[in-house]
């Protein structure tokens, strides 16, 4: 098949296996489906920064509260471990905590992790690949949660569904990496919202606090 066309002046080599199981033998594979209590989310973003810059920003886990929603604090506890504190909703006194361990660390390319005890059962990986045509980096995140459907539905109603949170966090990561801030409207003036305005804010996910952002860009 490779020889069916010989004139492809800018074509790049087809990867045999792509990020987070997206490509296998030159063929696209869909994301894993939810089953047996496991929920999966796979999302990607093209970011105009180098793979190594993005890897460094991601790997600096104590900075995660700058761009991950609801994360109050992250403490590095060892070469491969960290402790995470996450707010769960409107009540600032309520939080969940867990420890996380890096399973695989390939600088500039990939980080894989899993939780090792605490209030959250999750695992995931992030892959940094040069985008076709030298247009930046494709960052792909694959994350898995163990959580009942009921709990997930509850999360959707009270704040952010964890799957959507992974998607939003990658969006925040991209904005922070490309611009040095995360776009926000919380804190701007408005007239009285009334019942319908407030209901819409919840439905649109506008009640989840936008992370702080504010990251000094390497010039």
């Amino acid at each position, binding site marked *: 098949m490779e020889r069916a066309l010989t004139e492809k002046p800018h074509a790049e080599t087809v990867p045999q296996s792509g990020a987070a199981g997206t490509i296998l033998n030159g063929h696209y594979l869909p994301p894993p489906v939810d089953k047996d209590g496991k929920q999966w989310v796979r999302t990607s973003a*093209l970011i*105009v920064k180098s793979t190594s810059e993005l890897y460094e920003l991601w790997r600096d886990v104590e900075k995660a509260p700058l761009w991950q929603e609801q994360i109050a604090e992250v403490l590095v506890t060892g070469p491969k471990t960290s402790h995470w504190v996450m707010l769960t909703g409107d009540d600032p006194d309520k939080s969940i905590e867990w420890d996380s361990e890096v399973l695989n660390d390939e600088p500039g390319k990939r980080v894989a992790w899993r939780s090792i005890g605490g209030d959250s059962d999750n695992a995931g990986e992030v892959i940094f690949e040069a985008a076709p045509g030298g*247009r*930046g980096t494709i960052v792909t995140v694959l994350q898995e949660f163990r959580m009942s459907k009921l709990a997930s539905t509850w999360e959707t109603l009270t704040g952010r569904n964890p799957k*959507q949170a992974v*998607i*939003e966090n990658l*969006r925040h990561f*991209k*904005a922070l990496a*490309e*611009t*040095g*801030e*995360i*776009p*926000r*409207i*919380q*804190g*701007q*003036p*408005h*007239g*009285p*919202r*009334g019942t*319908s*305005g407030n209901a*819409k*804010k919840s439905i*649109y*996910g*506008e009640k989840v606090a*936008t992370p702080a*952002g*504010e990251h000094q860009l390497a010039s």
Partner: protein
Amino acid sequence: MKAVCWMGTSDVQTLTVDDPRILNPHDAILKITRTAICGSDLHLYDGFIPTMESGDILGHEFMGVVEEVGKEVTNLQRGDRVVVPFTIACGNCLFCKKKIWSACDNTNPNAHLMEAAYGYSGSGLFGYSHMMGGYAGGQAQYVRVPFANVGPLKIESDLPDEKVLFLSDIFPTGYMAAENSRIQEGDTVAVWGCGPVGIFAIASAFMLGAARVIAIDRLPERLEMARSFGAITVDYSEEDVDVLTAIKDLTGGMGPDSCIDAVGLEAHSTELQGFYDKVKTAVMLETDRPSVLRQAIQAVRKGGTLSIPGVYGGLLDKVPFGAAFGKGITMKMGQTNMHNYMKPLLERVEKGQIDPSSIISHRITLDQVPEMYKVWRDKSDHVTKIVIDPWAERAA
């Protein structure tokens, strides 16, 4: 401060709200000196654009004086006089680098809403629904401008506000519409809608080499304005006038090389299809009323270009796609890539080649805005463009 708030369909109120403050390092706060009501604000007023929340501050055409800047804004300082583009762009993403500023990846805090509706999210806009970012708008005394290092255009000459205010949207929007219509020297261009965007599209079509411009509307003051810019006018509401016949009569049966739909989703039609669309939108089977779009597709010549600066928001019914394919036409559309046009168009104003303020019919205070939304919607009182002085206590 005083601000114009959307409180529901056909309900706009001037209220006292908190002053805006710096929220991000690339923000600036402006004291607004002039602002305006846009034709597209009527889509919000009439409830055609989803994801508005009661209390939202309206307005996306404004200019003012820099009051305060965030710590990463190095190109502006307190006291600078600026015009602000209605699309917010970060300047760093792939789209901004390609100069498709209105497709910026990083300025819509509610990108997921627009992704759900459109597949991908465009840039954030001021005062134009939560799907488009939920940013507070500029029909107010102060406004917060995100990414102030990228968008605002400094006005360093002593031109009055009224001559440069429309660089915030409608002049660049009309210009991009003409550019999108791919005019070649000697072309004939037909423009539907002689509101402000249509007028600037007519002017820009001539600037870009059009030999003849045909302008279509029904309001005498607008047709008069179109003639003052050099167009031949067609009043579609006159008895016995059929727009398609008129266009054939004025182009030797050939059809215009380019057509510009400067009307958008709330088109009025005297024909049966106008009634059809009103019924379908009323029962939510259709969100937009595309009668001008249908007519423009029908009218454009074989191999011609259709440019669409008029706003469409959702689902359209009975669009003659067969005609579009059969004639091999090109369609170009979208929110204006403001940042490409503001500076070159300012130069044209500075050289005196065009006076954008000539379209203004009403100068008002913030307190008059609610009643003027109604006048603007009903096209009463010979209205052509409404400009607001947010600090005036009584009308000029």
